């Protein structure tokens, strides 16, 4: 059992880790852009906001599996293949990016308007306000957002397993569902549950620890 579970677990961790990193790299700037370009933002660009907002909504409306399949050509372009754990990171990251953008947007919007105004009153530039005020002030909430993203990606990666991504989801389906090895399925699911619980616990702990409010 262990020799089945351990490699799958490592695959899942590998997939989730890198797709978290890449989806943050894609989604974080989008989230920041949403906040600063919206009406009343510190870099008001209504047209840009509407376009970005529209794209994110469209991407978020796609059922995840379909989006993944649609993104296979991108995997081939970047990784060279469409099957396997590494190849799955590409669609996972892209698919999670709009979600990340919304999570980041929500966190940054929680920042008190007054501190942004203070930044403007001392002549801070837009990048200074973003990096020195907005992000540090939103940090506890951003950590909760990243936690949410990781938990979501654990779920997504399990689904990705169904279309050849590997990992615990793949294990549960192949052994549990197709070969009627219920024990493998149960263990896989339990490991996923533990993973989610652990990530959520650590995220909560970290966020409340750094929060000085």
């Amino acid at each position: 059992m262990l020799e089945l579970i351990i490699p799958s677990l490592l695959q899942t961790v590998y997939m989730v880790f890198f797709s978290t990193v890449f989806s943050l790299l894609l989604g974080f700037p989008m989230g920041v852009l949403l906040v600063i370009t919206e009406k009343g933002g510190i870099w008001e660009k209504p047209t840009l906001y509407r376009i970005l907002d529209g794209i994110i909504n469209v991407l978020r409306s796609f059922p995840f599996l379909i989006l993944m399949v649609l993104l296979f050509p991108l995997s081939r372009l970047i990784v060279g293949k469409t099957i396997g754990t590494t190849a799955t990171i590409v669609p996972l990251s892209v698919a999670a990016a709009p979600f990340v953008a919304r999570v980041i947007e929500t966190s940054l919007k929680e920042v008190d308007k007054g501190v942004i105004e203070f930044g403007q009153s001392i002549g801070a530039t837009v990048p200074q306000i973003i990096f020195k005020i907005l992000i540090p002030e939103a940090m506890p909430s951003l950590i909760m957002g990243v936690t949410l993203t990781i938990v979501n990606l654990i779920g997504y990666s399990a689904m990705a397993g169904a279309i050849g991504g590997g990992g615990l989801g793949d294990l549960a389906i192949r052994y549990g569902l197709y070969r009627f090895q219920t024990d493998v399925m149960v263990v896989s699911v339990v490991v996923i549950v533990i993973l989610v619980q652990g990530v959520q616990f650590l995220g909560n702990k970290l966020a409340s620890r750094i929060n000085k409010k």
Partner: protein
Amino acid sequence: MIEVQNLSKCFQNGNECIWAIKNVSFHVNRGEIFGIIGLSGAGKSTLIRCLNRLEEPTQGKIIIDGVDITALDKRELRAKRKDIGMIFQHFNLLSQKTTYENIALPLELAGLGKKEINSRVNELLEYVGLRDKRNAYPSQLSGGQKQRVAIARALANNPKILLSDEATSALDPKTTKSILELLNRIRNELGLTIVMITHQIEVVKDICDRVAIMENGEIVEINTVEELFRRPKSKTAKAFISSLKSDVQEEFVIPEEFNGRVVRLSFWGDNAKKPIVSHMIKKFNIDVNILSGNISQLMSTSAGYLIVELVGEDGEIQAAIDYLKSQDVDVEVM
């Protein structure tokens, strides 16, 4: 120092224009504490936010130190804003940063080195009396302490002007006093020009040199604080002052209950400190019965009033009243 000319601000609401400020003009002298008082919705907050263009004026000019700030582009404006500190009603401290880090932030953004920042922040902490709160987070500070941090932070870049947006409105009376004392010290020792908006007449009374009274987006009166308390011109000013007077329950004196003549004497400046009433009693053949009175300390002078019953012959009473008038005391027969 600050010259505001025909300033107007409209907030667009669909096709409609809502004028928050209507053609306002005033000037603020260097080293002055200039108050802008008005009820909420009078437009005073919008007005002060126009002074550093946190709010863009729709029309008019704002000339600070010879520079029309309404004509500056974004980069020039940012540079100019370093000369204009601002403090806020709700302090606007960064909740995730310590006192030290909050005060250091403007210096950091201005590109100062670690050493310089350290010595400047320590200096400022000392100045506002918060050395022992250096590593505390805002959530661990009282309201007054938070405002002190905000003041230190506003002073960090050595501004020439300090804008105070209802800085004491969220504080209790005792803390308000101590913050006002700090602001006055800043004006006296650092030579800053302070523009403050408030809805509290006590604040104006305690600290301002001159005051503008705002109502419905317009300035209805600009006056020195002395003159305002002595001879308020506008209805709004009178209302503010009477709100202050009602604290001493003057209305409890009912003239009809007394046989003599009941008069209200207003003293001003040095008058309030001279024994004028005592002289009057010695000089004229009348008795004086004191019914009510109060002396308040204004920023630069004291103001007081006394309600007295004058008992004696009509001629003597009239002569006494004339004497008081000759001593520059306002006499009002009630």
